[in-house]
């Protein structure tokens, strides 16, 4: 019995340690659930200060990850960046922390610094979805649409990520920019099927129109507007397409709808002027173009276009 005593003590201590580990895991699981529910402030409060240092070593990388993500999603990019830089020094081989550091740098607009981290991660783990996603966004912003497309595809080939409507929307938009219209329609239909939003419906409408399906395009534009009647851009987009399709009645009514809430809206004025122009109502067209031309600083392109059209109307090209 005496011989067994030390073994029992070790076993009991071991059980205690396992119990504590399980308890910490459960605590972090609960915090993950809170983060997923958008309760970032409470996650930040639970893990701030010296809390992470009091945790057992095995749990610290995960705690850094949770705290950093919550800081980032709470808009505290500076603090998140500091935390992840510290964590990267402590755990340089932890891919999740490296990915988050790269992601924070990317969201802070420091793409030149984010890119080497993403590349480092993808060298070790080419299928790392978060890194593929981050670098796809960077390539997109820099105009490298071929590389962007490739990395979006790698992102969406990962389980879980293929259920993210926003990533399908971004991927579809890249395809649309590349003028891969058929593929864009497929990707955007997927985005809409996962989550019907004004943005995804409008993007799908654009892709359908580019692909030549005008009826479907207007149907989706209408759906986008019904979903969010406050979205003026959806309404004006519809109006411009009505003009393009020479449905002058509809285009005029759409312009009128916008002008009923903002009588000097430059694009609505331009739209109505274009309808007048096509009908040969040159005086009314001039009156609207004068207002559109005064758009000035806020909408310089509309102002310049309206001014150029006015000059033509006055016979001074």
């Amino acid at each position, binding site marked *: 019995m005496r011989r067994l005593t030390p073994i029992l003590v070790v076993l009991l201590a071991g059980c205690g340690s396992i119990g504590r580990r399980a308890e910490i895991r459960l605590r972090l699981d609960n915090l*993950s659930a809170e*983060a*997923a529910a958008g309760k970032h402030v409470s996650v930040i409060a639970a893990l701030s200060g010296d809390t992470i240092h009091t945790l057992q070593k095995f749990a610290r990388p995960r705690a850094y990850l949770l705290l950093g*993500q919550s800081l980032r*999603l709470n808009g505290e990019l500076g603090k998140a960046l500091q935390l992840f830089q510290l964590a990267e020094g402590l755990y340089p081989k932890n891919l999740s922390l490296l990915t988050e550091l790269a*992601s924070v740098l990317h969201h802070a607009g420091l793409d030149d610094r984010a890119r080497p981290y993403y590349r480092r991660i993808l060298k070790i783990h080419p299928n790392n*979805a*978060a890194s593929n*996603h981050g670098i796809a966004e960077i390539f997109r*912003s*820099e*105009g*490298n*649409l*071929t590389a962007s497309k490739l990395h979006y595809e790698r992102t969406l080939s*990962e*389980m*879980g*990520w293929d*259920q*993210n409507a*926003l*990533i399908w929307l971004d991927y579809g938009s890249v395809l649309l*920019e*590349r*003028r891969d219209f058929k593929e864009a329609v497929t990707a955007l239909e997927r985005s809409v099927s996962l989550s019907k939003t004004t*943005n995804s419906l409008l993007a799908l409408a654009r892709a359908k129109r580019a692909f030549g399906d005008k009826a479907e395009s207007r149907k989706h534009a209408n759906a986008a507007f019904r979903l969010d009647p406050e*979205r*003026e*851009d959806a309404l*004006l*987009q519809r109006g*411009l397409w009505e*003009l*393009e399709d020479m449905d002058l009645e509809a285009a005029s009514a759409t312009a009128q709808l916008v002008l009923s809430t903002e009588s000097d*809206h*430059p*694009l609505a004025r*331009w739209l109505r002027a*274009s309808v007048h*122009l*096509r*009908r*040969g109502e040159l005086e009314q067209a001039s009156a609207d173009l004068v207002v559109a031309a005064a*758009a000035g600083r806020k*909408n*310089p*392109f*509309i102002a*310049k*276009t309206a001014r*150029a*059209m006015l000059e*033509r109307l006055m016979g001074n*090209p």
Partner: protein
Amino acid sequence: MIRIVALLALLTTTARAEMQSPDALLRDHLWRQVQTLEPGQRPRVGLVLSAGSVRGLAHIGVIHVLHDAGFPIDIVAGTSMGAVIGSFFSGGYSMEKMWSVGAKMRMNSGNNFSKIRLISLILNDQLLSSAPLEKLLNDGLGDRRFDQLDKPFACVAMDISTGEKIIFRDGPLAPAVRASMNMPGIFKPVLYRHRYLVDGGVVDYVPVDAAKLLGAEWILASVTEGDYSNDTPTNVLGALEQVIDIRGAILSRQQRREADYLIEPEVGKIAYYDVSRSVEVMERGMRAARKQLQGAKDNYILRSLPGLWSHWKPKQ
């Protein structure tokens, strides 16, 4: 496990409300209409590609972005590296193939450069040969003539005997492009059409005039000048390149003014021979083009308004 990954996916992406501005909506609307106009109804677009050795690879990135955006390019003109890239583009190279050519560029691509020949150049005054460039072009484009290209193309060289600017726009393509990229002092002058020809960068760094000669009415120039302001050359080649750069910069002041829109990739600090940075150079070209694409579209749409106007006004 799947739930955890999905959760991470959701955490990583944040909702974005991308409302399009009225300016952006009108730009898209008019851009689609401009794209449907035939050349003649809209101004013919001339893409002008400057000289610039390795820095000129940035043109590949610029072309890539313009191509993705569906920018109509009717005419191409180039000098030196701009002539090489321009000939590939006019010859119908795909974007991927051009990128691959740029990425594989080496110091001895298109010439017989080697350390032994370089020593020979310095000690015995034996100039190198750029003849392999003709083979490279013929391999890629198949021994074509200017009139067999997909787009009208012109390139520029200089007659080393008279100092004349020679604009090539007909005849066999490869010797003309080779002459355009034939750096004086390093490569033997090319004997072609009874003239001894060297790099056109010495007389026409940004060949806007060549594009206009081919009928371009709106010029988009990609300029990849070197930034020599803080550099002191330490060898013969560096000094020679810097002299060409300085002369090019002086020449290009007027040519820049003649272009309707400029894209200037930030490649000035990249050495003319640094092929190890070719991918970076192409990416810099893309970034510059992406940044300036909207401005280029605005400018071109406004110039195309007369063509659109005829569609808008009711028939009398």
